[in-house]
């Protein structure tokens, strides 16, 4: 189910170690790239709740989720947010 809220999802590749947790928790949004690090394939393709759970589940705190319109950080490190 797609999210009604437009989200901006960023993965900090300096932190991502390819644990695949986010891919397990929200497989239609996250996928591994060639380096076996996480990348966002489609930020709309899951519920906001699932996406936030995936972000929170990252053992490295590498994922930041923001409201795409307001820029408000919904989950993630303050310093990583742009």
């Amino acid at each position, binding site marked *: 189910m797609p999210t009604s809220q437009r989200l901006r999802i960023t993965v900090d590749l*300096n932190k991502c*170690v*390819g*644990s*695949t*947790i986010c891919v*397990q*928790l929200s497989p239609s949004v996250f996928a591994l790239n060639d*380096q*076996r690090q996480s990348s966002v394939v489609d930020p709309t393709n899951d519920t906001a709740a699932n996406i936030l759970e995936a972000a*929170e*589940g*990252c*053992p*490295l*705190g590498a994922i930041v989720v923001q409201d795409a319109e307001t820029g408000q950080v919904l989950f993630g490190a303050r310093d990583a947010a742009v």
Partner: protein
Amino acid sequence: MPLVTDDLMAPDVMTDPHSYYRQMRELDPVFFNERWGGWMLTGYDDVVQVLRDPDGFSSDRMRFLARELSEADRQRFAPIFDVLSQWIVFRDPPDHTRLRIVLNKAFTPKAVERYRPRVRAIVGDLLGEIEGKGRMDVVRDFAYLVPLTVILGLMGAPDLDRDLIKQWSEQLGVFFFLRADEPRRREIACEGVTSLVEYLTPIVEEKRAHPADDLLTALVAAQERGELSEQEVIATCVLLVFGGHETTMNLIANGTLALARHPEEWERLKQQPALIESAVEELLRYDGPVKATVRWVKHDVTVGGKTLRDGDRALVVLSAANRDPQQFTDPDRLELTRSPNPHVAFAHGIHVCLGASLARMEAQEAFLGLTQRLPVPVVATDELEYHPAVVSRALKALPVEF
């Protein structure tokens, strides 16, 4: 004959593994060690490649160990097999994925942050006792008590028997950390694991009868939902008690030693406690508790231009990767503000340390407490001894005066 020794247990290698890994990396970063019977990977990129490739490399240590032992020995060491074969760290997908999803929630950065005040209080209490004495053995009087008290609290187990638990964990560690000096290592590990199971089983049963707000209750609930088996619950408890303190204890001890040898860095941290996060990352990189981990090749794979064959084993040397000059400038220098610092002390890939956030937080509190409360410690011995082990970097004792 290689120019560099292939004896992973040589005394020089134990005291100064970093010089040895440097020589090894310079000789050949993908080296086949005949004596150990496997590959040694000492370059950063190769280490990361292997750790991120669970399709090419298995972690199923017990399956490979079972092949090496006779039927009689397998019976004799059944307690080790029964428990360790259920450990998440030795399992491949899909079982690994199933267990990791169950456990992950309790160990996210956000979840462990809630325990910070408790950890700070534990550190404060311990240092309150130590402060006036002017001396301590960092390992016995401080380093193990912090993480062991924390993990027992988190699990919801009583912390009355910390000394016993430490003793059983050490027995188990004789096997787990490849303590080749001990001929009875499998017997000793059996005793340790049996004692831990006997200790933890009634505690788990108690949670089943009287659910509480703790990790053991969450595990029992997950079992009742069919997400993991009863054996997996007990085995996981053993792993958390064991993995939850041995490694963090070694980080606190190794880090204290590194800072004692760099008094200006101790002072810097005292003056600028805001450096604590990057300081802990650097201590993990500089002399981390887990020197290496092992993988078994599942199908022929190319690493650093060489072909590793199906069934080969590989020692993935995390501590060597952490000092690879191609990745880190001036790698042998302790630089508390190093950034970025993409070390592999917690590994990479699907098995990346479950307790990484917890260990980071515990170490941050421990080093903040130490540097704030104590003057620079002086190491009070000429002969530091390490447990002879391929995998762990563990001081037997660290006597200091301050």
